[in-house]
């Protein structure tokens, strides 16, 4: 033992300087997480190593990013959030409050988001927006469909994982939620096939963090379903905001808590309005190219 005791105030720089350092630390932990690494490897293989040059349907490969970066990203951030729970007796009495730690965890979602952006660029390279595979959507609406299906789930899934990790104790909660969302999206997609003209089914189809906008029919045509992809992105982003706010609420107190609750109310109303607009906007009925 060679150290001597060093008394006096530590060389700290309290306050906001801690946040970026903590966010970088958490980001490093995420990128070393085996589940997240597997997700990145999967999407890289799916879009770079093994692209199908002769694809006839965009809906075959564009959910890959949502499943890997969104779904597996959610499991990774859930694990990341829960990993410090056992150390809470120590972590909980440090100067960095729980909402501040949560904010740093939310910041790590920028990594899967960036991966989602890269995946989008690669997808557009493989399947240009001018391709007839998108059906009757305008070029800008096609971009909106892809952003809503590839980029935003890559951001939202990890944020949802943080919120879940802050509030749920069950270790397999993220996996169960992933299965539930997957099941729900599949169910409402099947309903949309059988009730393509139903406004109610359109609302149900869009009442999810991921939704298909096209269906490749057996006859070789592409059916573009009703609904606005642009407003759907707004709805998805509102869900992201709700996930962040719900995560931040854990451990918040005083004025911070009141502000978060107020913001949650605003985000909830915005989400509802955007969902209705998403369902009412776009095509008024399904169109086949």
């Amino acid at each position, binding site marked *: *033992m*060679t*150290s001597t*005791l*060093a*008394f*006096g*105030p*530590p*060389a*700290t*720089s*309290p*306050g906001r*300087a*801690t946040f970026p*350092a*903590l966010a970088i*630390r958490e980001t490093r932990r995420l990128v070393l997480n085996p589940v997240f690494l597997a997700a990145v490897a999967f999407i890289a293989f799916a879009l770079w190593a093994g692209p199908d040059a002769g694809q006839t349907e965009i809906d075959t490969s564009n959910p890959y990013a949502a499943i890997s970066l969104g779904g597996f990203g959610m499991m990774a951030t859930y694990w990341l959030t829960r*990993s*410090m*729970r*056992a*150390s809470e*007796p*120590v*972590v*909980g*009495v*440090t*100067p*960095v*409050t729980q909402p501040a*730690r949560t904010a740093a965890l939310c910041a790590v979602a920028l990594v899967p988001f960036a991966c989602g952006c890269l995946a989008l660029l690669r997808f557009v390279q493989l399947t240009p927006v001018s391709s007839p595979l998108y059906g009757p959507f305008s070029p800008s609406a096609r971009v909106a469909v892809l952003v809503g299906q590839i980029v935003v789930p890559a951001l939202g899934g990890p944020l949802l994982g943080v919120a879940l990790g802050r509030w749920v104790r069950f270790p397999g909660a993220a996996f169960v939620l992933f299965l539930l969302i997957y099941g729900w999206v599949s169910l409402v997609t099947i309903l949309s096939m059988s009730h393509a003209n139903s406004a109610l089914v359109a609302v149900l189809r869009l009442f999810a963090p991921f939704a298909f906008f096209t269906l490749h029919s057996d006859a070789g045509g592409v059916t573009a379903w009703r609904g606005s992809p642009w407003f759907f992105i707004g709805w998805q982003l509102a869900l992201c905001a709700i996930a962040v706010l719900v995560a931040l609420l854990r451990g918040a*107190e*005083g004025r911070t808590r009141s502000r978060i609750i107020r913001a949650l109310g605003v985000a909830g109303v915005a989400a509802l309005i955007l969902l209705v607009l998403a369902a009412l906007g776009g095509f008024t009925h399904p169109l086949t190219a």
Partner: protein
Amino acid sequence: MATASISLRDVGRTFGATRALAGVDLDLKPGVTGLLGPNGAGKTTLLRLLATALPPSQGKVNVLGLDPEVPAERTGIRRQLGYQPQEVGFPRGFTAFAFVDYIALLKEWTQPAARHAEVRRVLDLVGLSDLGAKRIRAMSGGQRRRVSLAQALLGSPPVLILDEPTTGVDPEQRVTLRTVLAELARTSIVVLSTHQTEDVAALCERVIVLDRGQVRYDGPVTDLTGQAAGRVWLADEPDPAASVSWRTGTGRYRNVGGRVRGDVEHVEPSLEDAYLLLRGGSPQTEAAEEVAS
């Protein structure tokens, strides 16, 4: 400059219908204060209150002039606090260095070079400098205990709250830790809860005995030990007059308690004897009076 202090006034804490602490009044100054008491006496609750991990149900706590019930002031306290809880879990995959480094970051050591130097220093203090790269989950219980102590020592905090710091730690390390804590206590308020009376006797100037959530004794260790003078004796058989008797390694019985006697083979009382005497129901005041006379 005013001396750093902690004060508790009529502090109580309940968990549902269970009263863990009641009417506790304390003033703590720099130095080592030992906290003794049986299981369920309220020691951990008291330490959690001091560490701002738990608010009191009644009364007022003041740490270094700051009120832990005010969020901003609580953060101010936490900037000057080291806390080793009774039990701490460690995240999977973390090495000792990585864990202490993570806690250092949460203690606002944002400069990597300074932080790493500090982490190495505290790991060295607890004798883990060679095991910094070892995964905590692969460590022994005593080594894990030392990791949790290391994080509490970060920055040599003015307030150090330790809940059973030497449990599972080998005797050699315990002596080393005593040296570290004694040195720190020159300027810091160190409060440690333990069942090891020898640690309290070796390290603390002051001891507080808690029983059923209330302070049973608060004073110098030597005074408490002195209350057992003349009440500890050796005999070939357990003495029915004693409150507690046990067979020692020599085969004779150590008897503690009862009235001060002159017709037996007295031995020097230890803090443990005094503690057992106190716990055995002998009124503290009566014992003090007898010692005085």
